[in-house]
């Protein structure tokens, strides 16, 4: 086997592939061949590096060079300059946004410094389509150890001791869940992986499946052994074609190696995994709805109990965990529960993957120890707010969560602390907002999502969220009265108390938390018909300052509805009745005479 001197890792996550990382890989291989280096330098397409802001990423090892925003036409230069002559290409290196210096060694990047990678340990490191690379990184050792050396109780106890909690939303202890499924006797049990990631902005589960699919398969087999299940099902949305493709390859390879199938590791344990596709409904992330969808029924939740551990898929005991939860399991078995529970905070052990999005410099995927503060995540790893604007709030937990403000920046992030301040962990979406974002509109945005995703089974959710959305709409249009704010509050309480499943119960959370933290903004919309952030279009008012106006007619010529009148070299005026608030006059004026209020 050839020993390569250098490895070129090209990001093959969905984000970077959308920016032509396939072509980059092909071109690199071609350039290497042109220079007769194909036996010395290996090109590997990996999973997501997490640094999606600056993709496509090409990382060169062993000299730890991190090239960002690479284009297919840059590959020849990379080969000729860097690989042949050993000169790093400055213009492709990552530049530190604070200091303006290029970073020559990826270890010095602030983005990676505070991260601890457990669930993402192989993402951006191995070729996800090659089981050998996974095995070279201790892959399937945990499964072998479990099958040959541990009893079912041993495994469950180890997961319990590790303190691992479900990463999909609620944070229920995984070990206790496994124990329920184990104790319910039945001839056939099931292990289900919930890959129906639906929070807007969250993509950690997709990235794990795309970057390290075997870790999930291995963990499901371990769970199957511990709970006594011989069949595994992955419920994945059809909107994730790349993850599906890589899972299929992984399942095929694992079967060929005898790591899935009958008598795994020569034991009496049989286990196989199949895929089930979902149509991408948010409610199907709820475990009972997910199971119904897999059974071919409507994707609607049912009342719990009975829990899936008693009566789940086809009425049999079923353990449901999400992708990220499973991805932690092999590491816990290999390194021990004590190693794991020392990371993170006391009641939330280990790490959590967050999808940083919104008005933050480094948009991407980060894995950090629990108990880290929001400030560290947003300002140190995330590199602060875009364009030097001021931080306003961050929404965690997606449409079920709430927003956190400046005063929460130093709160350690874990399951319980986030609940205590009126938000939740959810699956780990983190949407950062700056001073230009209107919090009423943010709440409206999330409600729009829940209205669309409500399955319609129970009336508090079906009708209630619709009414909430209508009220918010009236507020952002400046039509609401103060007593309607009170109605909004009451309705939130009723929906939270009476909805059938988690989707409905948490749907009012964005409204509740923005009302709590940004009450003034709600009042300004109602009493002054004013949007303090200047984001609500209906409340905008464009005016011309007479002192600055020179009567150049530039604005009048640009106005699409003829709302601006005035003679040449005379002060112009905007007819508020006609104005559609498009902002064309603002960009047209060269004398700062048009202002927006």
């Amino acid at each position, binding site marked *: *086997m050839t*020993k*390569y*001197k*250098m*490895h070129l*890792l090209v990001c093959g996550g969905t984000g970077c592939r959308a920016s032509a990382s396939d072509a980059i890989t092909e071109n690199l291989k071609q350039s290497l061949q042109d220079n007769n280096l194909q036996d010395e330098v290996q090109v590997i397409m990996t999973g997501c590096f997490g640094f999606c802001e600056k993709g496509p990423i090409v990382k060169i*090892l*062993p*000299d*730890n060079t991190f090239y960002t925003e690479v284009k297919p036409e840059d590959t020849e230069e990379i080969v000729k300059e860097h690989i*042949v*002559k*050993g*000169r790093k290409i400055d213009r492709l290196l990552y530049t530190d946004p604070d200091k303006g210096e290029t970073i020559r060694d990826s*270890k010095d990047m602030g983005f990676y410094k505070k991260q601890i990678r457990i669930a993402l340990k192989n993402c951006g*490191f*191995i070729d996800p389509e090659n089981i*050998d*690379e996974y*095995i*070279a*990184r*201790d892959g*399937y*050792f945990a499964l*072998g*150890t479990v099958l*040959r050396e541990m009893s079912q109780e041993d495994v469950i106890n180890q997961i319990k001791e590790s303190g691992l909690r479900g990463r999909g939303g609620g944070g229920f202890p995984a070990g206790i869940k496994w124990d329920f499924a184990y104790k319910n006797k039945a001839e056939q049990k099931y292990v289900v992986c919930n890959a129906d990631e639906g929070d807007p902005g969250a993509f950690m589960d997709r990235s794990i499946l795309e970057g390290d699919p075997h870790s999930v398969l291995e963990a499901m087999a371990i769970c199957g052994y511990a709970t006594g299940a011989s069949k595994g099902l992955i419920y994945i949305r059809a909107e994730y074609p790349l993850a599906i493709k890589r899972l299929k390859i992984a399942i095929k390879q694992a079967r*060929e*190696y*005898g*790591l899935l199938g009958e008598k795994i*590791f*020569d034991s009496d344990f049989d286990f196989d995994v199949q895929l089930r596709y979902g149509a991408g409904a948010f409610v199907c992330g709820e475990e009972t709805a997910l199971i119904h969808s897999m059974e071919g029924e409507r994707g609607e939740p049912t009342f719990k109990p009975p829990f899936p551990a008693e009566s789940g898929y086809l009425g049999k005991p079923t353990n449901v965990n999400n992708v990220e939860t499973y991805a932690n399991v092999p590491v816990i078995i290999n390194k021990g529960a004590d190693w794991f529970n020392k990371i993170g905070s006391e009641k939330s052990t280990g790490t959590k993957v967050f999808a940083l999005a919104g008005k933050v410099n480094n948009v991407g995927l980060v894995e950090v120890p629990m108990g880290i503060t929001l400030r560290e995540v947003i300002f140190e790893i995330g590199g602060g707010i875009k364009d030097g604007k001021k931080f306003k709030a961050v929404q965690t937990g997606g449409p079920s969560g709430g927003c956190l403000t400046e005063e929460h920046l130093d709160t350690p992030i874990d399951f319980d602390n986030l609940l205590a301040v009126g938000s939740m962990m959810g699956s780990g979406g983190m949407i950062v907002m700056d001073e230009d974002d209107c919090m009423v509109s943010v709440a409206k945005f999330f409600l729009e999502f829940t209205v669309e995703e409500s399955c319609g089974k129970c009336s508090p959710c079906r009708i209630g969220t619709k009414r909430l959305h209508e009220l918010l709409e009236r507020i952002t249009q400046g039509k609401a009265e103060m007593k309607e704010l009170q109605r909004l509050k009451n309705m939130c309480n009723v929906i939270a108390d009476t909805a059938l499943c988690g989707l409905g119960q948490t749907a009012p959370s964005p409204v509740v938390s923005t009302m709590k933290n940004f009450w003034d903004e709600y009042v300004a919309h109602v009493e002054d018909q004013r949007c303090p952030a200047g984001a609500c279009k209906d409340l905008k008012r464009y005016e011309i300052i007479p002192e600055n106006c020179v009567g150049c007619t530039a604005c009048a010529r640009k106005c699409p509805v003829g709302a601006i009148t005035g003679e040449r070299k005379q002060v112009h005026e905007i007819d508020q009745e006609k104005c559609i608030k498009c902002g064309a006059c603002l960009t047209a004026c060269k004398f700062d005479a048009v202002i927006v209020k």
Partner: protein
Amino acid sequence: MGKIKSLDDLKKRKENLHKNVDLRERAEDAESYVQIKVGMATSGIASGAKEIMDFLIETLEKRNIEAVVTQAGDMGYSFAEPTIEVTKPGEEPVVFGYVDKKKADEIIERYIKRGELVDGIIPQNYRTIDDE
């Protein structure tokens, strides 16, 4: 490839496969390994730096020394090419000039393995902006 039947089976397979990724693993934590930079500018290549780099990688692996061998640009000692810079964990880097295979062998055996000094060291008599 056949089926994996036991943990030993898996272990053996992992050992064979590990060299595919060990370069990547070491790079993550390069300071704990012997790091060697080979000057690979035009003058270095013309004097045989490429062969020396291959020789170093092969020999280090044969002798079970875990090292990170990278190529660097011109180090400025064009009179003494090929030049290599060796950094042992926790020690200052040392630059050797006129490195041929025999010299490279000596550097591995005597300097890297036993910590003895070897002829051919180019004293570092300049400062870089990083030192300021």
